[in-house]
């Protein structure tokens, strides 16, 4: 068990500044997910923590000790790779025991730990098989097994589910979450998949261009994004960003769309913009904050009438494309809320949770 602390970590690849002075503290036993688009530096950061890359600046501390000059094997970490990294010439059992044998663990202890791990991961029947005889999901279980038996201070996962098909990915995600509950080791998990990040993390660290854009609990990032990038990255389908102008109107305020029409903002959202009359803003409305209008509207919920364009039923919910402020926006409705293309629908938009972004700086204003 160990906490991890990065301070001012930099990494260059030639002229590319991949990690730009990252400061990050991960508490003992925490499940931190590094997430971000391709090339944001998340894998580089993980590999730097593992010691597979040397940082070009800053310090990395694991369990209170600076590890910059320690080799990977001296850091007492375990790592799971995207391509499983199983040795094809060793059986499952030998693969799992590989790290223990490398550390000269007594054979009795090795056998005990391998069978414990195999039982925990449900791969007890495959121990004598070779990796090529296993499915993708089974291989990744073996890779995780190899990490578990090490009883390392810190677990690192580098996009471990990216090679699996969707259904298997859901299953393995659950397994990894359960695993963390059972062994409570500090885990750092890299993914580009925001669903994985949201579901697994105690804390999400969202990276962009080698910097931490925002970090915090999954729902905190989702509901209180600090920038338009964070708002846009988390959530599926993505948040709708609609260009508009902010107008104060006596005690109230509204966003006026360039194509006409306006939405009255609730006072809590309008207050921070009191002296910004006439400013251009991006109005961020999540698809989940649309609903079919019916009955009296709560404070901050406004009616909106639209025409259904594309309709994408998923079974439980139906994604409907509508026009709002001259932009295509996706509304997530109940399965049977809309039935045909071109249908006129009366919607309600919950503006209590709207995100208002300054288009120049990309920062969330309210």
């Amino acid at each position: 068990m160990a906490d991890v602390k990065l301070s001012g970590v930099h990494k260059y690849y030639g002229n590319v500044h991949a990690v730009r002075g990252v400061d990050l503290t991960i508490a003992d036993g925490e499940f931190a997910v590094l997430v971000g688009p391709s090339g944001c530096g998340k894998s580089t950061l993980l590999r730097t923590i593992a010691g597979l890359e040397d940082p070009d600046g800053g310090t990395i501390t694991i369990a209170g000790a600076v590890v910059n000059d320690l080799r990977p094997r001296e850091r007492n970490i375990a790592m799971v790779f995207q391509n499983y990294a199983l040795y094809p010439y060793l059986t499952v059992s030998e693969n799992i025991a590989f790290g223990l044998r490398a550390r000269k663990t007594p054979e009795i202890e090795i056998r005990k730990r391998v069978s414990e791990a195999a039982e925990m991961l449900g791969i007890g029947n495959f121990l004598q098989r070779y990796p090529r005889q296993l499915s993708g999901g089974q291989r990744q279980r073996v890779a995780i097994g190899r990490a578990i038996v090490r009883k390392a201070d810190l677990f690192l996962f580098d996009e471990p589910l990216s090679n699996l098909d969707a259904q298997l990915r859901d299953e393995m995600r659950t397994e990894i979450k359960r695993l963390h509950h059972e062994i409570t080791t500090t885990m750092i998990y890299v993914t580009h998949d925001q669903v994985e990040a949201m579901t697994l993390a105690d804390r999400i660290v969202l990276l962009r261009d080698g910097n931490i854009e925002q970090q915090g609990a999954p729902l905190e990032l989702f509901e209180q994004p600090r920038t338009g990038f964070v708002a846009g990255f988390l959530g599926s389908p993505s948040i709708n960003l609609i260009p508009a102008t902010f107008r104060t109107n006596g005690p109230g305020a509204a966003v006026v769309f360039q194509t006409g029409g306006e939405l009255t903002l609730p006072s809590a959202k309008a207050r921070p913009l009191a002296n910004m009359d006439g400013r251009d803003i991006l109005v961020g409305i999540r698809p989940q904050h649309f609903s079919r209008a019916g009955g009296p509207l709560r404070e901050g919920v406004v009616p909106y009438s639209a025409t259904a364009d594309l309709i994408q039923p998923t079974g439980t919910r139906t994604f409907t494309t509508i026009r709002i402020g001259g932009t295509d926006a996706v509304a997530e409705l109940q399965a049977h809320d809309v039935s045909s293309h071109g249908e006129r629908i009366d919607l309600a938009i919950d503006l209590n949770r709207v995100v208002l972004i300054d288009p120049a700086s990309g920062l969330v204003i309210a």
Partner: protein
Amino acid sequence: MRVGKLPARKARILAVRYLGAGVVTLLFLFPVYWLFMISFKTPDEIYHVPPLWIPGQIQFSNYYVLFRDGDVLAILNSLIVSGVSSGIAIVLGTLCAYSLARFGTGGENLAMWIISQRMIPPIAVVFPIFLIYVYLGLVDGYFGLILLYTAFNLPYVIRMMRGYIVDVPLELEESALVDGLNRWEVIWKVVFPMVRPGLMATSVFTFVFAWNDFLFALVLTRTEVITFPVMLTHYFGGQSNFWAKIAAMSVLGTLPIFVAVSVMQRYLVRGISLGAVKG
């Protein structure tokens, strides 16, 4: 009707193919067969007209002479020189290849420059090397030949092994580094098992290169360390050729290669095809 006919037609085509393959095989194997037969013949049978396909009686006197006169020491010399030089070339070459493949040693061009050393015509360098060897006192000894064959085989080994090592997924090595191995252990326990077919194929070829070399051995040996190809030339005389000795010696000289290739066959096919795919 048609369904019944088709297998018959296929069988005919197959029969013709096998027949063609058989004829070509016989054609290629005939010199080898003739060599073996001569080695068992008496001088009368060797010069018999018309030629005798099979000797009247299998006898080993031609081989006995080689052992009695100590000529077989040439085979031992070849084994020592080829074996040791291949071993050194494989070990050094694989480590160099690892460095090129994983640490990018020498940048983009070093790997190509190394293989370009193989392109030098040996005849162009054999006399300068001879002069240097005379100066250093390396002529007519094991060390000189081993050094030379190692130098000539290294580029080949480096080139081949680099290709095989590049094919090993980097994550396997990184995983081993995290799991507790140092770099040497990674090479031994991860890289080596992964490239084994390629390593075996390369070993056979390096051994064969050294084994078959005639030019350097001819120029750089005198009386002490005569290798098998050079020894063979001693049996071609101005007055007559000792066909019995030539045949027996050739058979003895072919056997180690035959054994090596037979033992490594499984690796050879995989090793060669691995390289071919990578290109």
